[in-house]
């Protein structure tokens, strides 16, 4: 187990087995790692290896069949608003009958913050996302990259302690991806949250993350946690990962 300086989100011996028609399908086995305060972590692994399931477990949307996830030491047993998950199919998670601003405000009960104040911070967030002019537009009037920004703003307004992003920049073009990556880095600099992202893109991993959690095998197990990923070269990372995948 790799321990970060101050653990915010701890994944402890997590295992997940699905009961299906054809019997038991183990998806994750004995996975442990820690997400530290203000960490920027990438989870990599072959597609279909259970990364999304792991994120869902970390957000409390699914109970693991073994082990547990702890938020600041407290086991997560139900969906946890402080661990905000932005889904891979983020477009489907925006409410088509609400405009961008109302989507950001979706589901927020006053919680001691006045309505007007909340609205102001939503507008400020949209402004920071470069969507100041689009607050009144509906999700289906926005491009994929803009929808992703709305989904990000909606997560950030909740001031989560951990932000989970499932292949966040998969469905957008090269230029949009680059600007979204910069946006993510600036969010990481300015917000007080840890960020965990699942991705396939090695350049993205190197560009964005400080630590890399590598999953491999079926069921997926933790193969390696690479610290100080920022100093790594693309080739070095590729070698790391191919060793993990059993290919020279």
């Amino acid at each position, binding site marked *: 187990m790799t321990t970060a300086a101050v653990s915010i989100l701890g994944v402890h011996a997590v295992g997940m087995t699905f009961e299906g028609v054809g019997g038991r399908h183990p998806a994750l086995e004995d996975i442990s790692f820690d997400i530290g305060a203000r960490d920027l972590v990438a989870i990599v692994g072959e597609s279909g290896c259970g990364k999304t399931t792991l994120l869902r477990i970390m957000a409390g949307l699914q109970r693991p069949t073994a082990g547990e996830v702890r938020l600041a030491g407290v086991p997560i047993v139900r*969906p946890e608003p402080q661990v905000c998950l932005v889904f891979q199919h983020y477009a489907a998670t925006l409410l088509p009958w609400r405009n961008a601003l109302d989507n950001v405000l979706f589901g927020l009960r006053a919680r001691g913050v006045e309505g007007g104040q909340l609205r102001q911070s939503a507008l400020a967030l949209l402004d920071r996302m470069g969507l100041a002019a689009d607050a009144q537009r509906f999700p289906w009037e926005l491009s994929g990259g803009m929808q992703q920004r709305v989904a990000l703003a909606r997560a950030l307004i909740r001031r989560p302690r951990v932000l989970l992003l499932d292949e966040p920049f998969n469905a957008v073009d090269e230029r949009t991806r680059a600007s979204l990556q910069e946006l993510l880095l600036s969010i990481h600099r300015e917000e007080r949250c840890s960020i965990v992202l699942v991705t396939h893109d090695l350049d993205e991993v190197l560009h964005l993350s400080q630590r890399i959690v590598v999953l491999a095998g079926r069921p997926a197990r933790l193969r390696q946690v690479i610290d100080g990923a920022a100093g790594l070269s693309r080739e070095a990372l590729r070698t790391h990962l191919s060793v993990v995948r059993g290919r020279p």
Partner: protein
Amino acid sequence: MRGFEGRALGYALVVGLLLLWELASVTRLLNPFYFPPVHQVGRSLFEAALDGRLATALLTSLGRGFIAFTVAAVLGVGLGALAGRHLFFRQLIDPIVELLRPLPSPAIIPVAILLLGIDSSMKVFIIGWACFFPILLNTIDGVRSVPPALVDTARNFGLRYAETLFTVVLPAATPVIFTGLRISLAVMLILTVVTEMVAGSNGIGFLLLEAERTFRIADMYGFIVALALVGYGLNRLFLLVDRRVLAWHHAMHKAPTP
């Protein structure tokens, strides 16, 4: 402009057919007892409208119809939402629904008369019964088609079960639920007339049958025309509500992909 021409021709065709009827009846080409001239039908309808018979009958009929429709909508959407969200509940009600749904609703009128008599309660029951199934089935479909990620996002944000249902699931399913409501609105009018014809002493269905039995044939046609207008009006009214409530849905499907 071609659309306009087609529509104008369509209306001209209706007027032409009415004229043909009028001429055939006046010249006795058609038996005027069975086919009274159009102007006589118009006069009968006008008189029934003036002396309040029509309004009273329509109010009685539509009052019953709407009570039944509302009860069916509340039960259909409520149970449909449960069945759409929970596999167990869906499997629980599926055999009953599949057995009862294909049953033509008028077939249970005798049972309803036996248990409830021939008054309003029997009619409300039959109309509600018939309206219930399209709403139930469309609500199940609509709720099942809500993207799971949308529901998970609501859960992730800490929304409770009822909050998720009312602020996410049902609004997202509304376009499909409205299809069911629209079908049921047509069914409502049909069953309202049928139940009043089978048993009863008031309502537009009763007036219609009574006119035929007492050989007031022009009256009979007049009531049929009135029913056609009511059906048309109800549908227009529904479309008006639909366009308002589902404005986002219609705009979304018209919008080019950004």
